[in-house]
């Protein structure tokens, strides 16, 4: 009797698995995907650059300043601040801007780069720290997640690392 009941349950389960397999491309995968998409997850700030702090308007384009991204847990990478210049198509050929990163009213860095005419061409830029809080970068492209001047789509992404000595305070 017990064997029979177990067998019935087993075959029922197997049949259900077939139904599940048949439903995967139609509904099931979509349900699971939506579940993950609505689970309140977000990509780590080290990759995305964090949340927006404020926007600085310039003529024809804007500079989006992000919040400081600090390394998590035992990650030893540098803390950094991300800047996004957009839209890249509206930028002048040569950009050189002094930018206040921490919102204290004083410029912290000067970002300089030449915009290549070919959007797919690699680019490099310079970041000159105007105080000891940030690290200067010279002729940098995509060195690391905390040090870069790169083009992504119609944006120029600049990441300025924070001086670690300053970060410890």
């Amino acid at each position: 009797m017990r064997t029979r009941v177990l067998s019935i349950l087993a075959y029922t389960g197997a049949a259900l698995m077939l139904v599940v397999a048949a439903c995967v491309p139609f509904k099931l995968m979509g349900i699971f995907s939506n579940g993950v998409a609505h689970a309140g997850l977000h990509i780590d700030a080290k990759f995305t650059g964090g949340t927006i702090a404020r926007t600085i308007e310039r003529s024809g384009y804007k500079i989006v300043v992000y919040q400081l991204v600090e390394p998590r847990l035992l990650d030893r990478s540098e803390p950094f601040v991300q800047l996004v210049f957009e839209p890249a198509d509206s930028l002048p050929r040569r950009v050189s801007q002094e930018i206040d990163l921490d919102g204290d009213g004083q410029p912290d860095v000067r970002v300089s780069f030449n915009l290549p005419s070919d959007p797919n061409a690699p680019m490099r830029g310079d970041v000159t720290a105007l105080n000891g809080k940030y690290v200067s970068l010279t002729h940098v492209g995509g060195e690391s997640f905390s040090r870069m001047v790169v083009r992504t789509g119609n944006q120029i992404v600049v990441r300025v690392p924070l001086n670690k000595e300053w970060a410890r305070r």
Partner: protein
Amino acid sequence: MAALSLSASAAEALVLGLTTGPVCLASCGPVVLPWMLVQPQGVRPHSRQLFLFLAARLAGYLVFAAAVWLLGASLPRTWTGRSWLFGAIELLLAAALVFYAAGWPLRRCTVAKPVDRADRLVQIGDAPHPRPTGALALGFLTGINLCPPFLVAGLRAAQLTHLSAALLFFVFFFAGTAIWFLPFLSLGFLQRTPAIVTVARMVAVLLACWYGFSGVSILIERTVYG
């Protein structure tokens, strides 16, 4: 007034230890877990080993506390010096993991002849003997491993007036973090499966490789970039 100030610092240290305990667990847990799994099974041996580990870790904390207080917190601010220390500690930790947790290279790497089925997957090499030096070495090295909450506590302790206050601060900070290690006493049930012990040894070797690589990277970076 002095007693009030002291108790306030102690409370602050305890809370700091409790709140940063998970970070300590993330930092030290991967070292402790595989090592504990290859120790003899049972609550008493585990308690003894864990006690030795935590005691050595406390010793490491106190050494650091004395150092930061005496140097007036200049040690954390001297980035170059800290990096050399980071690198050296990680290399030592790697060596200690390999020696005490994995049992290489002193023991022969052989598969134990099967006495019964349970022994087949037990170990790489001979059965481990409880070595107090393992607990002490690993405890001390993780104790002076300068993880972020440790540095926060160090900077805070450096601001205290007396050396005894700094040491006491770190004792309470240690107590707060140590609470997070108590569940390691109950690892005995995992040891009943010999395969888990073998996996633990392998994880220890991999972690040793990781710490070794990390330590070498830091030292190379310091050597090249100063």
